[in-house]
């Protein structure tokens, strides 16, 4: 069979999405959308007292790449600490999916943004300034650069 626009990994996650659904008692929820094409991605975190992601689930309205990016992101997140989570870039998601078509890279970016949004929600809920997420993110980016 001729190769399709998506890798086998993408198709696998599209057909068998991991961690699909909602977490009733989530303590971090992030929802982002792409105005260009209308995709919406919602992430649910259950983070324990040590700042470790105990559970993560997603709901996504979007194309194959959006669904696969969400699913892959949840897999990569589980068991990670908040700090580690922020180090997860969209590139890592793309790589883990064995690539995405150029026009679909934005789906992985959306996943990265959803993670940030969920973490901000988490910090807000535990009474911290959510902008800490931006600072942490900036720090990571500087580290990567230097």
């Amino acid at each position: 069979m001729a190769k399709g626009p998506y890798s086998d990994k993408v198709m696998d996650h599209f057909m068998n999405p991991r961690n699909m659904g909602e977490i009733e008692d989530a303590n971090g929820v992030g929802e982002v959308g792409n105005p260009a094409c209308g995709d919406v991605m919602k992430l649910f975190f259950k983070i324990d007292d040590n700042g470790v992601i105990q559970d993560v689930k997603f709901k996504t309205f979007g194309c194959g790449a959006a669904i696969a990016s969400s699913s892959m992101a949840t897999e990569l997140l589980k068991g990670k600490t908040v700090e580690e989570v922020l180090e997860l870039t969209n590139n890592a998601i793309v790589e883990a999916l064995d690539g995405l078509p150029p026009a679909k890279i934005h789906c992985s970016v959306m996943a990265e943004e959803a993670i940030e949004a969920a973490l901000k929600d988490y910090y807000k809920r535990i009474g911290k300034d959510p902008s800490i997420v931006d600072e942490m993110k900036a720090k990571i980016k500087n580290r990567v650069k230097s």
Partner: protein
Amino acid sequence: MIYLDNVAGTKPDPRVVEKMLPFLTEKYGNPSAHFYPLGRESFQAINEARENVANLINAEPDEIIFTSCGTESNNLAIKGVANSFKYEGKKHIVISEIEHFSIQNVTAKLSNQGYKTTKLKVDNNGKINLEDLKKAINDDTLIVSIMHANPEIGVIQNIQEIGEVCKEKGVLFHVDAIASTGHIDVDVKKFNCDLLSLSAQNFYGPRGVAALYIKKGVHISPLFDGGYQENGFRSGSENVPGIVGLGEAAKIAKLEMVQYSKNMKYLRDKLINALKGMFSFLHITGDEKDRLPGHVSFWIEYIEGESILLWYALKGICAASGSACSSNILAEDEEDLAASHVLTAIGVPNDICAGSITFSMSKYTTESEIDEVIKVTPEIVNRLCEMSPYYKK
């Protein structure tokens, strides 16, 4: 495999292929070579094809020009009259909002030469309002170009009435009949049209060949300059096997269209009725009465078209979607993704990746194939709804 993307091209009729084969093997002569039999055979073959195509649309053979695709026919029609000395000075074009890119983008290109375009709105069923058309035509109007049937939402325009308005107003009229020819009656005399595009791949002919009807007396400036072929309207060595295939497809359509279209209508109505009963949030697009036989199109709230397409494909069903996400997967940039202008024109919310699907059947489509679509659709929709942050049970 259940192939329901026939607006993207049909399976060639085996009789068409059989007729083409000699012209790919032993009858390889150039139709311009009149002085030996091999050339004359090709010449005769393309003229026979010309007669068959003319016959299908009630034209004369010398009013038919062969081209390489529907897009070429549409470009040749519009640019051809725009660049003809005969119509110099007229700089206004009327089209509809739901024309194909090969019309939309041509008028956009012509704006560089000072042409202005009025795009007629369509109603929620995809139909043009005749009063709008009358108002749109002015003294500067060169040509009106309207699609007979829309491949995405299946709607059929009242072409005859549109043609009468054009005739009354004394403007040229081009009909893009690429999605309709070979499926429903296409008659250049009834349509009162000056130009009409049709394409082989849309009705059981081969890919790579199409035609343009040019009414006697209408003048176009060619897109290709060169030798003497096609009366100078379309220079270049002819695609003899392709043209022979188009001719045979036209001949078969003329004879068998009424019968197979009747069958397709039955399957269409069966599928539409089943879909309407499935989900309150599934919306049929396009006029339900004036629509192509075998054409079923709809959109679903809460879920996205590409995902639906992919799932259908996994179930062995080939379909199309007008969602932005599925629009141009080869683009280098997400900016190049765009929701179908046809769907937004009929009022499908364009701020979301519409979950639109088009099924287009062929004369080969069977009832058991349609039953299979009816069977798998709820599974797919439920699965994707479950995943959707918008959907609430």
